[in-house]
Every structure is written in C-alpha cells, then in structure tokens.
C-alpha cells in the first residue's frame, strides 16, 4: 500500500508555488478546468484523472503553478466537485487548506433545465437561488422552475 501511494504521488509532479485541487470526481475534471478558466491561464498546469483515492474511486487532481483563487471563484466548482479540497503551496509546503462550499446563488455555470425558459432561447447568463445544497436544487431567477442535481448540465 505504501509503495502504491508513493507511485501515485509521482504520477502528478509537485509544484513549488500555487494551488493543488484534489478530490475532484474524474468525470468533472474538464468542467472544473473550464469553470475556473484554467484552459485560458498562461500558468503551468498538470492534472491527472482516474486516480485511486480512499473517498472517490475515480478521483482527479489539478496542480496550478503560481495561481491562487478567491473563495467566490473556488465555490463555483462546488456544484460538480462538492468534496474538492484545495492545498495552497508555498515553497513546496502546504501553507493552507480550503474546502469548497456550495454558494447561495449560482450565476452562469449551469443551464436551466426548463426547455421553455427564456435563458435557453436568448444569450442570457443564468442565475439561480440555491434552495437545497444536499442534494443540490436550483431555482431559476427567470422561469422560477427548479433544476435538480440529477438534471444539472454545465453550460
């Protein structure tokens, strides 16, 4: 087991300064990258998917060099990676740990489930009140219909 853990660590190399986002469900990896706009960052990123972890059978991890996130930004991934953990790295050491929290409002990110909602007909940024966090239920500010976790589609 120890041997195995060592190998896992080597799969995604360590960073000297930056943020490690761990415990992402593998299937959400690319959505997390897109929500945090890591596909547009000039910073070095390494990521791995389908890694073993105690909590998640298939976890993914992202390491971003020289980049740190505000809580509001990081909470945007809570909808698809509710158990994600962040390690803030300075000089190869973890100096701070953060967990994500589902926010009270979700702006953008999610598509309204209602095909007859105006946000699905015109280029409008969606906006939802979070009426339940576990499981997630989002009430659309426009059509007032509820999008449940199992119906959630990332925009």
């Amino acid at each position, binding site marked *: 087991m120890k041997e195995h853990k060592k190998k896992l660590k080597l799969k995604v190399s360590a960073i000297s300064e930056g943020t490690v986002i761990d415990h992402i469900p593998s299937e959400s990896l690319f959505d997390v990258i897109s929500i945090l706009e890591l596909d547009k960052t000039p910073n070095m990123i390494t990521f791995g998917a389908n890694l073993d972890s105690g909590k998640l059978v298939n976890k993914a991890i992202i390491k971003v060099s020289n980049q740190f996130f505000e809580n509001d930004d990081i909470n945007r991934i809570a909808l698809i990676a509710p158990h994600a953990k962040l390690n803030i790295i300075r000089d190869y050491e973890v100096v701070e740990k953060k967990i994500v929290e589902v926010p009270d409002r979700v702006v953008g990110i999610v598509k309204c489930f209602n095909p007859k909602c105006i946000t699905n007909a015109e280029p409008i940024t969606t906006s939802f009140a979070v009426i339940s966090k576990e499981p997630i239920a989002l009430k659309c500010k426009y059509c*007032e219909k509820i999008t449940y976790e199992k119906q959630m589609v990332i925009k």
Partner: protein
Amino acid sequence: MNKKDLISIMDYSKEDYLRIMDMAADFEENPNQTLLEGKVVASLFFEPSTRTRLSFETAINRMGGRIVGFSDSGSSSVSKGETLHDTIRMVSQYADLIVMRHPLEGSARYAAEVSSVPVINAGDGANQHPTQTLLDMYSILKTQKTFDNLNIFMVGDLRYGRTVHSLLMAISQFENPIFNFIAPEELQMPEEYKIYLREKGIRFFEHREFTDIISEADIVYMTRVQKERFSDPMEYEKVKNVYILRNSMLKNTKPNMRILHPLPRVNEIATDVDKNEKAYYFQQARNGVFAREAIISHALNLK
C-alpha cells in the same frame, strides 16, 4: 427594485394587494379617470390573447393613455429574428410602461431587467400571470368581503394551471384559509405547493371528485382539464366528465358561495350554471379592467 415591475405575484406584499384592491374598487365606481393622459403604454403581445389584451387596452383607454404595440409576434420584428432584449431595449425608450405577454417562461423577468420603464407581466408561458391573480382576488374580496377564513375549492388541472398556483400563494398570506384540491391523478397540485402550505401550517385536502363536499365551499375556482395534458388518452376519457360543474350540484351550497373561472371555458362549467346567481365568472372578467387600472396606477405611482 426601484421600478415598480409586476412580474410574479410574490413581488407584491400583502399591503400591496390591499392597496390594489382599494384602488380597483375606486376604479369600479369611476372607471374613467384620466390619470394616463399624455402617457404612452406599450402593449407587447408576442402570442395572441383575447381577454387579457382587451382588458388591458380597455383599462389604458379608460385612463386616457395611448397605446402602441402589437397583438402577435408575426406582426413585429420578432419575425425578422430580433431578440427580446433588443425589442424591449428599443420600446422602453418610446413608452412609459410596458405590458407584455410572451410564450417563454422567465421572459417577463428578463424584460424588466432590460427595460428602463416598469414592466407588467401579462403572462409568461406557464410561469406567472399576476394580473389574473389580482383580478381573482378582487373578485373574491367583492363577493366574500374578506380574504380571511375562506374555504377555497380548486378544481380541474391543478398541475399546469398557473392561475391556481398564484392564487394559492396570494391567499396564503391571509388568515386561516382552507384549500380543497379536486383533480385527476395526473393533474394533481404539484408537491412544491403542498410543501409550501405545510410549512405555513395551512390546511388542505385532496379529492378525486367534489359532488359530496361542494356544500362547504366559499369559492369554487374551476379550470379547464385539457386533453393534451394526458400522456394516456384513456385516462382523459375516464376523468373528462368528473370535473364538470352542473347546476344540479349547486343546490346545497352556501349562500355566499361563488364560482370563478379564469376563462375561456370549454365544457367544464355546464351552460345551465350561467343563470345561477352563484356563477360569477363573467363579472370576474369585468373586474379585470378595474384591477388592471389599479395595477397600472400602482406601477406608475399615479395615485
């Protein structure tokens, strides 16, 4: 919100409801009050509607206002592919107030965000139709003299009927209501409204038919059971005659009981009910003009 938009029935407080009721009564006494003189109201009907549009336009005319607009999207720039955003942006620079009906849900809330002048929602798809609710409330107040301690029967399509949902939310702001929901299995009141009532500690009962219990009602609010709502046409055939109100059913009803219907009706109220003094749906439609005069006054701070 600085602008006094009316998008959803819950945008108004209990005080707002009562203020609208007072003003509607005043307009009923004297419908021709030229408070809108010199003002232009845009009446934007992206889908056709007879009653709502005519009653709004009657209200505006009785108040001395001018109307610009269209009565279906075929005769507007929508048919050229203009977005709702651009239409509203443009019209809000022309008019002092926008009255809008649109087939998509949430369109009215979005229009209110884009518009620099107040927007009144005259129906956004299956979502909200708050002016209907206010005229229903005015009809209830006129016939019952109160909003408290009322036993309200809602009959027919309670699943998709936006008018019953909004009325339920509005009446729940008042003291001690009782609701009786009478609907076929497939068209029951959605769970979210029942949760809302339970949380507020409001009593409600569900039934499959209502012949035996109608004697308890103060208000019977009828709605249309539409064939296209049923996934199984056999189910529709089974229930289509259960939710029809007939004159013979009204024998033992309370003297103050009144029958409401948002109209248009098809066959859910037999025509022999029309001459019964408890049939109130045509007066209800008339009340729509006074309620809308009051809503316009409220939106533009005219009174």
